[in-house]
């Protein structure tokens, strides 16, 4: 087994490292800490943050790839749910069903009959043992975390949660871990969300889609931030022709309808990939490269809003007393920008990052439907919805793919929206009362 990191894996871990570094450097900053403590005094925000954290953990598990002896590339999540990769059926089956959804023609002793064939990897008699195992595992894991928290207390001071509702925290954590363990335990003997057209487990697809959604929501902002911050601050600080050029740039980009610009860029990118097969070794690498390009394109088309906001704020800030004092004391442009202006814009950046996440997750589904989203072979909620469109037209309808995508996607978007509301409320000085 050999560790192989795809391009997006590297970027994701880079992002994690950057966040960790930022957290480490800000750990003594009382103001930031107090703000975050205030965010988590809201029960809704606390719950949402935990749900989001669960998605992120799954996405991170899915971002550590190994090359197996047979040459296949598998992630940690794949290894955890290896049984789902193997337990494929022949065709559609409903959640928890024991037989196939479609009738097959069978010949028995010269008589031709149509029957629902039994599924190969379903063991109904193990339902209650699995439920027990899931509950036990979930509770056990929560207990373990609790022990770590209170046994090794000096390491985890939990200062961010100092004013949060502790009991709610542990209850929600227990619920999330238990649901996850239940899904894991049950998935060994059932198809919890049924199977798709070629018999692949839908739960597995929905779980794999988490990485795609989370990556698009986070990497896009990561790629967009340097552009938005750099240009916005420069336009607001230097004014004059710099401002004119930057304003012209974002007005031009803004005047192209978003989806069309993305579509045009993605079309070009597809053409490039078609003409350069030497850029990637395998189908996974190709899909991954396409995802990377998609986040890049989304980033290049979505920096204008934040840039305009930062420009306006910088215009205001550059007239503030402490900036003028710094200038009078002989501070250079670079110093003023880095020490006095940019740090005071960070709350806007933070709000934008959290706010953009849910929009990007939703955009992935629409773009994939239009045909300019992620690779069709990649697991994503957009691809699941796309396939479900035809399945719903069947009689009777195959509803479980759509239902799985709906549950997984709406939950993360809802959590992100609720958290971003709270973050905005706390970090926006104008709404502070």
């Amino acid at each position: 087994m050999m560790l192989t990191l795809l391009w997006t894996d590297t970027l994701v871990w880079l992002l994690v490292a950057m966040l960790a570094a930022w957290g480490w450097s800000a750990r003594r900053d009382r103001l930031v800490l107090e703000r975050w403590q205030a965010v988590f005094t809201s029960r809704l925000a606390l719950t949402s943050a935990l749900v989001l954290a669960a998605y992120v953990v799954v996405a991170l598990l899915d971002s550590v790839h190994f090359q197996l002896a047979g040459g296949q590339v598998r992630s940690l999540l794949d290894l955890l749910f290896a049984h789902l990769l193997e337990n494929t059926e022949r065709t559609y089956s409903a959640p928890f069903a024991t037989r196939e959804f479609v009738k097959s023609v069978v010949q028995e002793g010269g008589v031709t009959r149509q029957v629902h064939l039994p599924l190969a990897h379903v063991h109904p008699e193990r339902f209650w043992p699995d439920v027990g195992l899931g509950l036990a595992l979930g509770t056990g894991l929560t207990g373990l975390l609790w022990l770590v928290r209170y046994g090794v207390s000096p390491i985890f001071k939990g200062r961010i949660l100092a004013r949060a509702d502790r009991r709610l925290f542990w209850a929600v954590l227990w619920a999330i871990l238990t649901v996850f363990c239940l899904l894991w335990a049950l998935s060994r003997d059932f198809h919890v969300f049924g199977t798709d057209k070629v018999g692949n487990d839908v739960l597995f697809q929905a779980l794999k889609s988490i990485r795609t959604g989370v990556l698009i929501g986070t990497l896009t902002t990561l790629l967009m931030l340097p552009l938005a911050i750099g240009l916005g601050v420069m336009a607001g600080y230097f004014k004059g022709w710099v401002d004119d050029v930057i304003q012209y740039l974002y007005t031009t980009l803004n005047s192209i309808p978003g989806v069309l610009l993305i579509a045009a860029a993605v079309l070009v990118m597809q053409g490039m990939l078609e003409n350069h097969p030497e850029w990637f070794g395998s189908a996974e690498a190709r899909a991954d490269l396409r995802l990377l390009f998609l986040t890049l394109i989304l980033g290049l088309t979505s920096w204008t809003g934040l840039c305009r906001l930062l420009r306006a704020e910088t215009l205001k800030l550059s007239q503030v007393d402490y900036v003028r004092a710094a200038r009078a004391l002989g501070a250079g442009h670079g110093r003023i920008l880095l020490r006095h202006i940019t740090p005071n814009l960070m709350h806007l950046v933070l709000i934008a990052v959290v706010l953009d996440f849910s929009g990007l997750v939703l955009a992935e589904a629409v773009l994939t439907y239009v045909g300019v989203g992620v690779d069709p072979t990649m697991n994503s909620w957009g691809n699941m919805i796309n396939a479900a469109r035809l399945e719903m037209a069947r009689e009777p309808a195959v509803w479980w793919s759509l239902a799985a995508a709906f549950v997984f996607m709406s939950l993360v978007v809802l959590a992100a929206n609720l958290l971003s509301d709270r973050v905005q409320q706390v970090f926006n000085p104008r709404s502070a009362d």
Partner: protein
Amino acid sequence: MLNYLMRRLLYAVPILIGVNLITFALFFMVNTPDDMARIHLGAKQTTPEMIEAWKAAHGYDRPLFFNPEAEGLGTVTDTLFFNESMRLFTFDFGLSDSGRDIGEDIRQRMGPSLALALPTFLLGLWVNITLALAVVLFRYSLVDRTALVAAVVLMSISGLFYIIGGQVLVSKMLHWVPISGYQPGADAWKFLILPVLIGVVSGLGSGLRWYRTLFLEEVEKEYVRTARAKGLSPWQVMRRHVLPNGLLPILTGVVVVIPTLFMGSLVMESFFGIPGLGSYTIEAIQGQDFAIVKAMVFLGAVLYIVGLMLTDIAYAWADPRVRFK
């Protein structure tokens, strides 16, 4: 004001040239016409002669920006950029890669797009504003909080689910209206009513929140208390005082959208099989027809700039302080 609008109009020219440069760079420089020919001809064993023939047939065999072989003005005009991009300024969209007249297609498909987008827009506006006013009337009460939670939940569901859900429930199970399709004339409402309603519902969450914030800011002001004190009912205060005063910020967000209604909705139209500009664009994207995508990008940019100018006019109309400056 006229002076200002003229300046605005002149400012639009460099922006549109910029838009053209972007699409041109995307379609002709990142992917050379040779690459395009290879994609369209499809087969792996395309000979150089076949590629040259395809380029000549579509007029893609000219140099990019500068033609040293032509004479006089021809050095600039007999180039790909001038022919493919600058020509758009006269609204001459040329032929699509499959040989159809794009301008004619656009004229034909504008009708169905508007028939869907305009009612969605107007009904959505009316529903959002009415509900927001009602919610502000009961501000900080249980009604308000419930509406806010409902709005967040509505916002968190992808529009695709509303469409598929609506189609299955209303068309497939209840058989009230056809699932998809379109018919011009009096029978069109049968095909439009479901997409219009779905469009309104899927925009409700974010719309309600946005208008609520606007009206909430307005309702805290002194004149509202005066109006109440002079004996107006709460609802009348909302309608006669808060709504007109809240109109100004609404105008900025709303007027700019109006011209782009012509472009239609990509997803709605293709789900409901409405032959408008949205489904036209989707077909072009899926068929990799760069000529159509380029034309639609240009059209979209023009309409957006028109929207910005309309916003200025609407502002002057609504706010005398702007008008007399």
